[in-house]
């Protein structure tokens, strides 16, 4: 009776209730650098992976315009991204960022009315103290906003700032995970890291932890990560540039769900 049924039902859209695992794909980099290779036609690309992916991280605009592709049986559940940053505009982009910016572009209520199964926002680590404090404040208030709506909040930990380097990368992930667990996140996305770090964090957290992969992994690579205790993986946007991505996603879905087909 003291079960938060709304959150449990929505959470199970993404993390399978039977095996506690999920395969997630992030498409939201398009709001930072425009259409990504393979994602030029959003709907066509999504249809190809929709059945073999548990959750799709999408921006609010795509959630509104492509609602018919999202949610429910045999479709990816919509995880709506509520923040934006120029942090990923590097030298390869036509207009590299000169100063890193981050802001909230929507709120929990809006995502709720768009049919979100969950919302996600980023904790960008390694920038200045002002930036960090504002980031934490935004995420805290978002967590407080999601709670009475029984809407799951995922936090995407990104160790991208200038203060993070090889020397403190692994420990920074632990710090970020600690902060976000205490903040009240319902699930965490951590960067790909040493398996030892992943195992440490996954054992410690009592909320599902997904690993954000830098490259589309092979089934063997994914298997290794899952064995370190992760609840699943977030595949990168670069996935869509591969010619056979529908098959690759299908194989990874099979791997994550231990032999179960979409």
């Amino acid at each position, binding site marked *: *009776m003291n*079960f938060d*049924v*709304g*959150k*449990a*039902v*929505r*959470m*199970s*859209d993404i993390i*399978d*209730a*039977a095996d506690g695992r999920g395969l997630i794909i992030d498409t939201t980099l398009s709001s930072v650098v425009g259409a990504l290779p393979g994602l030029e036609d959003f709907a066509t690309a999504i249809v*190809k992976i929709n*059945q*073999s992916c*548990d959750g799709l991280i999408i921006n609010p605009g795509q*959630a*509104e*315009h492509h*609602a*018919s592709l*999202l*949610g*429910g*049986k*045999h*479709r990816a*559940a*919509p995880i709506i991204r509520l923040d934006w940053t120029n942090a990923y505009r590097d030298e390869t982009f036509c207009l590299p960022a000169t100063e890193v910016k981050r802001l909230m572009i929507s709120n929990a209520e809006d995502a*709720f*009315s*768009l*049919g*979100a*199964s969950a919302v996600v926002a980023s904790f960008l680590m390694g920038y200045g103290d002002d930036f960090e404090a504002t980031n934490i404040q935004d995420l805290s208030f978002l967590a407080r906003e999601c709670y*009475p*709506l*029984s809407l799951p909040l995922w936090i995407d930990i990104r160790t991208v700032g200038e203060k993070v380097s090889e020397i403190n990368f692994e420990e920074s992930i632990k710090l970020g995970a600690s902060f976000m667990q205490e903040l009240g996140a319902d699930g965490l996305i951590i960067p790909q890291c040493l398996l030892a770090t992943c195992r440490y964090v996954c054992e410690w957290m009592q909320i599902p932890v997904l690993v954000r992969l830098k490259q589309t992994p092979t089934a063997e690579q994914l298997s290794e990560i899952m064995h370190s205790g992760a609840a699943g993986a977030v595949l990168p946007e670069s996935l869509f540039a591969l010619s*056979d991505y*529908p*098959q690759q996603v*299908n194989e990874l879905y099979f791997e994550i769900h231990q032999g179960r*087909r*979409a």
Partner: protein
Amino acid sequence: MEMTSGKRARFNRLFNPVDGRAVCVAADHGWMSDPTPNVVELERILKQVVEGGADGILISFGTALRLGHILRGKNSPAMLIRADWMNMPRLGGSNVSNVLPAVNFKKIATSFATDALLVGASAITIYYFIGYGDEFERINLEQAALFARQCRQVGLPLIIEPMAVGGMVTGVNIAEILIASGRIAAEIGADALKIPYTGDVKTFKTLVEQAGIPVLVLGGAKSDVPRDALELVDEALQAGAAGTVFGRNVTKAKDPRKMVADICALVHGGKTISNILNEKRDGFFRLKTIPENCIGCRLCQIACERSHEKGYGQNKSRLQIKFPEIGDELCNFKPVVCTLCGKCVKACQPNALTISATGHLTLDREKCTNCSDCAIACPFDVILIDDEGFPIICDLCQGDPQCVKWCKQNAVVTVPLKKLPGRL
């Protein structure tokens, strides 16, 4: 049909993406009438309903809090929340008992749309009583309009349930009233209807066409014979219904799981009532596949081999499953079966292969020369050759195909065959 994005994403959970249909179960009776065994034993029943493959379950807020965990997983039934209350079953006109009888008909709203979202609902359902007098209908419409406005704001689908009851409703005008009420509900803002059957395909077809939104037919009081309930579904589907919301016919059934599975077989599986009830098939028939339904479980092959060869292998089965290949974007499985096309019969020089008078492919092993011409002629490659050189052929299990019987996904079904092909 267009609707706000949030409604669409939540509607997706209710309707099957392949056929756009839904099989729902109403389990909100404890909220409005005397607690019968189907109310008291709801947990057990709901678990069976989920196993049966229902697409949606209509429950009260209390049941959502208490048993909503059963509905976890995006492929499990969508949660539909009853957002109002009425005392009609206690007015004495129905077949349910009345511990505390009511005299005056009452219907009240008992929540706001947002409340249902908090507990994880994919839609809400409310009544629209028509025929009980003008003031009572005004109250119903007022509540419906308020819910419609709220539902648009929060992106939650609204299912309106028109009910023609009261002194102004007669056998003469009930179909017309239901047809009108469906359209009125759509105009007010319903995203789908839950509505009684009008009694015949023609009028229900008119209802569906004029409503312009998905129509789910309801079952009403429990039928004495399961066939009656299935025939209602069958006719409603012929009329264009998008599915069903059956209550007592499921929750009071001896085997709620089977009842739901049977309705699913009709609504999603393309099966006939005769198929489902394992009735003797009248006339000739053949096998047909529905690849969208196939999940590659191979139960059909096991059933085939077991019935003919007494083993559990798959290398002598009379049907095949084609697995998806690299490049197959939709990653579908394809069951391949003998369709009684007759090409093998024509190719058989010694007339060893024939189609019997009862409509089954038959091999005369005395005449067979082991030439394999039949297997070569088969356009689907479903005739294998055994170790002795004889063809392995589908004989439709002499009228009771085990592949059809055992396929839980309705990926292999039977369809009537007006005329048998080739030489008899």
